[in-house]
């Protein structure tokens, strides 16, 4: 997959926002039409049936409706990633779109902590869009109980899959992220799966999860979530440690880049055939996504937005950019997010590629990656 960030505008100011640095950057606020057309061309060349529109808040782009129309005209199924503060005209427009070619991933507010106005607006969005909405939730600590999202699925008859993300650090940034304390089980994740299963709601996990966040019993009883369905030629292997002195070691295939699940089975666009769907194991979901920014630059992902960026190519496809980012990052990163990762049997079995690369980069001493812009992080400057 690849995402198109069509605007830097956002009014939510989430503390954990992994786009925080990008939103604050002094650059184009809104993606201009010529860049958007080029981005759609890039998706076409990459063989993607979906146009995934991000922000900021994508519905705040002045040409939001035109951009969705244009993507659908070109045969894409459109997925909009929204924080829920959707302008009313955009909401009415989205309500009229067919569910088979349009959906919204709604980053759920937390009723107990977020502003009532935001929560109420999200309820309105859910009421208006119904099954077109897939709820998503980003978890910042093991104390959170995000099970409220499951109630909303039933209450508003939403898509019966909920997307769970873990708040990742922006490498070189200042966002509020989930602090991992070694390879430990984080019970909230499997609890959510269990509650969801009880009411017929599937829980899908986003990038950067590792099997060690789940109990052995859970991993063993959910093999479909943790094992590849295809052979992974780049599966990592345990590194051998010499017993004395020091010696060269290889950094065998950190990332199963070729395994990224481009699309869900339900996301085939009009007239465009999806690449063969591969069920990607939870532990190997970190790799360059490729996010296209409003000015047309491409980054590996938002968590690594302060590292390298490339101009949107007029030729070639996503795999070319993925190769570039992989080649830049893999040789210099630790094998995993924890110091124990080199000895982990999940890694040895190819069930885990070490977790979020931005987290892995945080382990480097001193920081070996060179930030693009050394200026201190600011707050969001775009309205």
């Amino acid at each position, binding site marked *: 997959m690849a995402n198109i960030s069509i605007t830097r505008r956002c009014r939510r100011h989430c503390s954990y926002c992994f786009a925080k640095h990008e939103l604050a950057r002094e650059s184009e606020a809104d993606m201009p039409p010529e860049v958007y057309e080029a981005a759609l061309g890039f998706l076409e060349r990459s063989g993607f049936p979906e146009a995934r529109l991000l922000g900021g808040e994508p519905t705040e782009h002045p040409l939001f409706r035109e951009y969705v129309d244009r993507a659908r005209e070109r045969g894409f199924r459109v997925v909009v990633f929204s924080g829920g503060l959707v302008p009313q005209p955009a909401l009415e427009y989205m309500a009229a779109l067919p569910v088979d070619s349009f959906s919204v991933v709604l980053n759920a507010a937390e009723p107990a902590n977020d502003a009532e106005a935001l929560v109420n607006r999200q309820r309105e969005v859910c009421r208006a869009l119904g099954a077109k909405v897939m709820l998503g939730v980003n978890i910042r600590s093991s104390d959170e109980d995000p099970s409220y999202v499951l109630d909303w699925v039933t209450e508003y008859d939403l898509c019966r899959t909920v997307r769970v993300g873990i708040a990742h650090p922006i490498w070189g940034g200042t966002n509020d992220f989930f602090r991992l304390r070694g390879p430990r089980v984080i019970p909230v994740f499997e609890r959510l799966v269990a509650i969801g299963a009880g009411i017929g709601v599937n829980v899908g996990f986003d990038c950067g999860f590792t099997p060690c966040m789940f109990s052995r019993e859970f991993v063993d009883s959910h093999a479909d979530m943790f094992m590849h369905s295809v052979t992974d030629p780049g599966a990592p292997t345990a590194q051998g440690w010499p017993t004395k002195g*020091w010696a060269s070691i290889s*950094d065998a295939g950190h990332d199963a880049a070729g395994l990224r699940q481009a699309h869900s089975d339900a996301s085939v666009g009009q007239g465009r055939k999806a690449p063969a769907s591969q069920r990607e194991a939870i532990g190997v979901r970190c790799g360059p996504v490729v996010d296209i920014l409003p000015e047309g630059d491409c980054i590996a992902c938002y968590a690594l937005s302060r590292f390298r960026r490339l101009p949107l190519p007029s030729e070639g496809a996503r795999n070319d950019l993925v190769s570039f980012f992989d080649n830049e990052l893999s040789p210099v990163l630790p094998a995993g997010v924890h110091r124990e990762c080199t000895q982990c049997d999940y890694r040895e079995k190819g069930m885990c590629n070490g977790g979020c690369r931005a987290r892995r980069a945080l382990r480097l001493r001193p*920081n070996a990656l060179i930030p693009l812009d050394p200026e201190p992080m600011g707050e969001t400057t775009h309205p």
Partner: protein
Amino acid sequence: MKPSCQVSWFVETRGVTLCSRDGSVRHSIPYPHAGLWALIANGHYSTAYASELMSVLMSVGRQEAEREVEETLAAWMQAGFLSEE
């Protein structure tokens, strides 16, 4: 003596891994030598302290520890992992 500016490192369970900034070279330093690296990387190196530490970690006499430190540092210097102040 300090780590070369061309080198970064990270701590693993069994030692420290060094990595050239361009990613072309990667080396592991297992314990107890990783302890010596940590001394240098943290700016706490002195010959006396390093020898004492290695003597304890390796369970060897002081002279042998001094020799080990000397040889190890020479090798790291030659490999470009370390540079003079």
